[in-house]
């Protein structure tokens, strides 16, 4: 069986909120190292990989590997019933067809219990190769979210151009063009607000803004976002959730038409 107690229950809620609009159903693979979810969106353009380490829970117990298929929309609605400082406990029997969720308020004054039906999901699991990315950009998550939102008024896609000076995001559409450049180390006081660029070679790739906007829903989970790019491979957008785990998104680039 699985029993996992998360002192900061809000993290779980934010995680599910960050992926529920991208994928409708997902399999949570639980084993002794933690809880992982990998799922692709319907059109197989984007993939989300959520991982919550066993050490992020207290306590964490998983005797046998378990796969819990969950409708994320329903899961998210249940998690909305949780108080901000609640402690959440997830439990599932080995042969059960539900997963149970318990929310306890900090002072123990209120306990809510929910049971969520499991669903049978036939999803393909993708093997993601290790990639040495040409460019790795760390920047404030809120800044990235804003850029995606701002540029989406202009067009459907954004060209991300990483050079040693900075990262340039540009979009164009019927009404006009626009670009936003973020320079390296632009932080003033706090380290978490700075931008760092690790560059092997300059890259320029085009991505769908709709998906990036969707990814940036994870902004609530982390101060910084890391974008990893290489020519002609999917973009990796990573949000690290402190010591608890991470949410990684992969997005296939848009490719110029060859004929």
């Amino acid at each position, binding site marked *: 069986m699985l029993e996992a107690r998360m002192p900061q229950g809000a993290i779980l809620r934010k995680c599910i909120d960050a992926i529920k609009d991208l994928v409708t159903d997902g399999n949570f693979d639980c084993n002794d190292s933690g809880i992982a979810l990998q799922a692709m969106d319907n*059109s*197989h353009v984007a993939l989300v990989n959520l991982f919550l380490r066993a050490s992020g829970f207290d306590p964490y117990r998983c005797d046998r590997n*378990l796969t819990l298929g969950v409708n994320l929309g329903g899961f998210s609605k249940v998690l909305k019933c949780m108080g901000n400082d609640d402690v959440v406990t997830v439990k599932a029997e080995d042969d059960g067809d539900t997963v149970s969720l318990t929310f306890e308020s900090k002072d123990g004054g209120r306990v809510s219990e929910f049971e969520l039906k499991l669903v049978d999901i036939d999803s393909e699991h*993708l*093997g993601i190769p290790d990639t040495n990315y040409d460019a790795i950009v760390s920047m404030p998550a809120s800044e990235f979210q804003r850029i995606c939102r701002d540029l989406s008024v202009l067009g459907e896609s954004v060209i991300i151009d990483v050079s040693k000076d900075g990262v340039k995001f540009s979009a164009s559409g019927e009404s006009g063009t626009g670009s936003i450049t973020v320079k390296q180390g632009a932080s003033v006081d706090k380290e978490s607000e700075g931008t760092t660029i690790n560059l092997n070679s300059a890259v320029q790739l085009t991505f769908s803004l709709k998906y990036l906007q969707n990814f940036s829903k994870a902004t609530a989970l982390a101060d910084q976002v890391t974008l990893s790019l290489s020519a002609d491979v999917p973009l990796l957008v990573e949000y690290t959730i402190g010591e608890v785990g991470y949410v990684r998104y992969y997005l*296939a680039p848009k490719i110029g038409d060859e004929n």
Partner: protein
Amino acid sequence: MGIQGLSKVIGDHAPDAMRENEIKNFFGRKVAIDASMSIYQFMIAVRGQDGMQLTNEAGETTSHLMGIFYRTIRMVESGIKPCYVFDGKPPTLKSGELAKRQERRAEAEKEAATAQEAGDTENFDKFSRRTVKVTRAHNEECKRLLKLMGIPFMDAPCEAEAQCAALCKAGKVFAAGSEDMDTLTFGSPILVRHLTFSEQRKIPVAEIHLDKALAGLGMTTDQFIDLCILLGCDYCESIKGIGPAKAYELVKKHGTIEEVLKHIDTKKYAVPADWPFAEARRLFKTPDVTDPESVELKWEDPDEDGIVEFLVKDKGFNEERIRNAVKKLQKQRGQATQGRLDTFFTVKPKEGSASKKDTASKKSKPSGKKK
């Protein structure tokens, strides 16, 4: 038309082989479309409010052009790259089937005429739709339009479905687009149906995977072809009294039609005399197709003035609408296409997971997959 009851057999025994999808999820995919079948559909379905086919001032039918033009644009707008395959000479074995169709058409014509005389609009509508015949001229007009639109097309030496299947097998296109289930019998790895249906009908595009169908049915390709022949194809008669369930059972049990014939009670099931099933089987296995490697599919810029000249001046379409539609075509050109993750990442084989539901579903499905 196609294989009788095949979609039901696949649906019953291999439900995961069929997947419904929105048309927009096919972006970036190249699809080979059985043109002759689509044109036929358009001529039946694309009608004015009076139920008559659309015509220009001279009274020539334009339903097929309307259909090809707008439905192609709809596909292109969704990011699909369509190419059309036209029927060539029908195989001799099909002559029986064709004669039957001819007969039915003649009958429908008579019925339509009586209904018209009697002023019975409902029946007239019903029967006039059955009198539809695609002529060489219709095909030529469609080709001319496609050429102007910059959409590639080709003539199959024989059956268009077979050529679509060959293109798909060779990886030239992602899928074969046809309503005919025999596209699968011709060995198309993926068949998409309902692709050229009207948007208003809100019918999702159905994607059928041959490998999953075979795995679900627990059959080899040869057995699958035999199953299709027993179900009833265009090339020979089927055995009276053997329906989908029986056909599936027989092929599962005996493997080939030869063995089936040895074991069934020929008194109960009348096998047609000189049944040319072996010949039909040969047609499915080695159909007459152009080598897909020699086929080059090239999408080009549409010729706006050419289209206007043809559709507006010759065929009486509305110029403004046509120009707007061509704009949509042009817009899609030169736009970067969205890539897919499965082209970058490899799909991992399924591991046996410990979930209860998984084991339960495995039990209920006999997996006699043979390669």
